[in-house]
Structure formats: C-alpha cells, structure tokens
C-alpha cells in the first residue's frame, strides 16, 4: 500500500519482512519512550512489536496497541516509528485499521 503522505513519506503499516534481530533495542526503546509522552498514550497498552531494517527506511519499529477504555475492537491500532534525515524520528499512529496483527516474537 502506498503510504506516501504529502510532505512526509512513511513506511508501510504492514511489515515488509526484513526483521532485525540485533542492534535494535536502543531504537525500540527510543520509540517507546516517545510514544509514552503522548497525552492520550496513557490509555494505550502496547502489544506485539517488530523492528525491521531496509535500504529505504533504515530502522522501522512497529507496535500494535489497544486502547484501554474502549470496547474490544476488531481492528488493529498500530504505531510506526522510523528514522528520517538528520538523525530524527517520525511517528505514524494508525487507528482502527484492517491490518494483520503483528506476529508474536519468535
């Protein structure tokens, strides 16, 4: 799915299959720490996460989350965190999507 947003390109919401197995904990922790500073994130419960690396995006962290004060949803909420130029990070919050839940860690 083309996820190009005007003014800011973003990785696909679905993983692309280039799972990173090492040197990823710092980036994941940075993303988690950022998400926790969102006002609304105090009602979010992070679930399965996955980190990937590819040529275009570099490191990409994806995590599914549930919203604690909601009825059980049949849709997927996902956070995507990736590197952008100048060593910065960007975040996409996708709510109520028809996505396949992230797989459990192997």
């Amino acid at each position, binding site marked *: 799915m083309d996820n190009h*947003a*005007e*003014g*800011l390109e*973003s990785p696909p*919401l679905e993983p692309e299959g280039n799972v990173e197995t090492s040197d990823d904990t710092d980036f994941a922790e940075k993303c988690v720490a*950022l998400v926790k*500073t*969102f*006002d*609304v*994130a105090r009602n979010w419960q992070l679930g399965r996460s996955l980190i990937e690396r590819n040529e275009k995006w570099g490191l990409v962290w994806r995590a599914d989350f549930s*919203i604690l004060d*909601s*009825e059980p*949803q*049949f*849709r997927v*909420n996902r956070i995507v965190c990736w590197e*952008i130029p100048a060593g*910065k*990070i*960007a*975040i*996409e*919050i*996708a*709510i*109520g*999507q*028809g996505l396949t839940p992230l797989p459990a860690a192997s």
Partner: protein
Amino acid sequence: MGLFDDYVDPQQFNGGGGLLGRLLALPQFQRSFSPDASFNSTSVGPQTPGNAVYAGSVDPGPGAGLDQAPTNVADAANDNHPADAQCTTASYDCLSNSYDNDYAQACRKAYLACRAGGSFALSSGIPVITNFPDGGRVVLHPDGTSQYIPSRNPPKQPR
C-alpha cells in the same frame, strides 16, 4: 433540532466534498463550529456547535469563497490549516465513511490521537502522522504546518 432535519438533495454537491463539504455548502453551516470531543459515536457528524473556529475563518484556498461550496473538501481544508481543523475534517470524513459502531468509535479515537499528535509535534520537534480508519491521513509538522490527505478508497462494509 436534528442535524439533517431539512433534507437537501445531495445531487447538488455533484458527489464531491465528503460530509464536511456538503455541510459547508449549506448557508446555515457557514459559521464557526467544531465537533464536541465527546460526540456520540453512534451518530455521524458533530452534535453541537463548539467554540473552536473552523469553517468561518479558515481560508479555503484560492478560487473558493465561503459562498461557494468547494468541489473537493480536501482542496479547501488541506494544507497548513490549524492542526485541530485538519483533525476535525479528517474525523468528519471518517465518520461519513463509517458503517458500524466499531468503525465510528475508531474514528473518534483517531480524532483524539490526531489532536494529541499536533501538540506533540510542536513540543517535541517530531513529525506525526495520524492515520484514520477510513484511510484518511493528517500530517502534523513540528513547525505547525499540516496536511490532510483524504482517503481515496475507504474500506467498504464486508458483505
């Protein structure tokens, strides 16, 4: 008084603009309004007019005056309008595309996340994209600029 008490022939909108575009085309809605943050997810659209300025003060862009319905709401409320206005537009479109309560609830949650994302982008220097259930996306930049990209293919109700 219900939002749609006076029926309006939708044909006049030529199929464009989404829910918000149709509302903006009506003279009685060309005034300030915003969705109440606690709007009922079982109904589509805002419950009561709020205090936030939106339709009455946002520049709809070149060639589109307030007395003329924009042919595409995305053109009228797209680039660099206040973040809250972008989130509002996206949520209205999302609700107009919703087909069940689960979907509508998700639109509301996305609206709240979008607004939080705007504040977060300004304070953290990190750009934030909020992706609504219907595929609409709001991009919020740390410099206060923003874009709303409506969904080109909102999910349809499964048969």
